[in-house]
């Protein structure tokens, strides 16, 4: 009896330990990608850095250039850029994690995270939408 209880208990422990592995961890993928690829410069809360690095929190640029953002993340950007009326002029490298460019699915999760945090609100993007916008992006190699 005791043995069976122990056995069931052990089974329960094994199940508890292995279950999270069965679920996709993509729910927080956007936040994780942001922390790895973006937060170093744009800040933990999208606050930016002085007039060197533009903020993402409350940035008018996100809505004004919505369709261009997948390409901007994929390729990086440099040169003058106005965000909330402030002129920035820095180099932003392409968003990469583990030295790999981000897939359309990852870009979608990342953009949905950025566009719906820190006071930002935007319609959720779909992977198809992001894929379509990437095809308009010159010289994108998968």
């Amino acid at each position, binding site marked *: 009896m005791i043995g069976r209880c122990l056995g069931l208990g052990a089974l329960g422990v094994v199940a508890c330990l292995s279950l999270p592995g069965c679920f996709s961890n993509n729910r927080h993928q956007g936040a994780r990608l942001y922390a790895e690829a973006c937060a170093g410069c744009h800040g933990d809360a999208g606050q930016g850095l002085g*007039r060197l690095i533009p903020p993402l929190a409350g940035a008018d640029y996100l809505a004004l250039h919505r369709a261009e953002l997948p390409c901007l993340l994929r390729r990086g950007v440099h040169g003058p850029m106005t965000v909330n009326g402030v002129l920035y002029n820095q*180099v932003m490298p392409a968003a990469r994690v583990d030295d790999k460019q981000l897939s359309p699915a990852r870009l979608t999760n990342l953009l949905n995270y950025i566009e719906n945090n820190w006071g930002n609100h935007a319609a959720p993007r779909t992977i198809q939408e992001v894929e379509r916008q990437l095809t308009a992006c010159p010289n994108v190699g998968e």
Partner: protein
Amino acid sequence: MSIRFWLAPALAAALLTACSGPSADQAARLPILGERDVRPNPNGGPADTIFATAPAFKAVDQAGKPVTNQTLAGRAYITDFFFATCPGICPKMNGALLSVFKPYATDPRVAFVSFTIDPAHDSLAVLDDYAQRLGVTNAARWHFVTTGHSATARDTVYGLAKGFFTAAQPDKEAPGGFAHNGTFALVDDQGHIRGLYDSLDANEVARLQKELPVLLAEIAERHPQATAAQ
């Protein structure tokens, strides 16, 4: 076994001797980093210990003013190495240094010095623009400096980076074309390096924020009159 038995008390005694004197009962001191040189005393007394000092440098800041070790003598200062177009770790590094700087923005006891490792691009105008964009308006408080325009300026600053225990070198693979790490060095009023901190680690930045006042208290002890005058 017996050697080990002996070693601990001997070491403790040596440490106690080193710390005894007027400051024996003072709060913990920051270590002096770098190789030290022990010179025998020709008169037969205890040997002199010569502590390492930060490398000598001559640079010009964003206001066009010269900055050397002498400019900073008598004060604490913190160094880092960056370049204005750096898309890699610099924003995070200088963002972290900005958080250390803010409470001391008008405090003459400590200065901040950021050396560009890309002197060919980072002219005084570029450095000034960078400082203004970061929110640093007083060049005398936080110097963004260049080692100049000569052909050897870059080698000079790489050598300095090494002397301040950080690393900088050109690297085509690195973001922006330069590889460097983001070590802050804390230097005391006598030019000794007293702490090194990884700017990319929030705990290390917090340690710098905790240790800077410890060093300032030590410097104040050495210059009681200067402190009274403030």
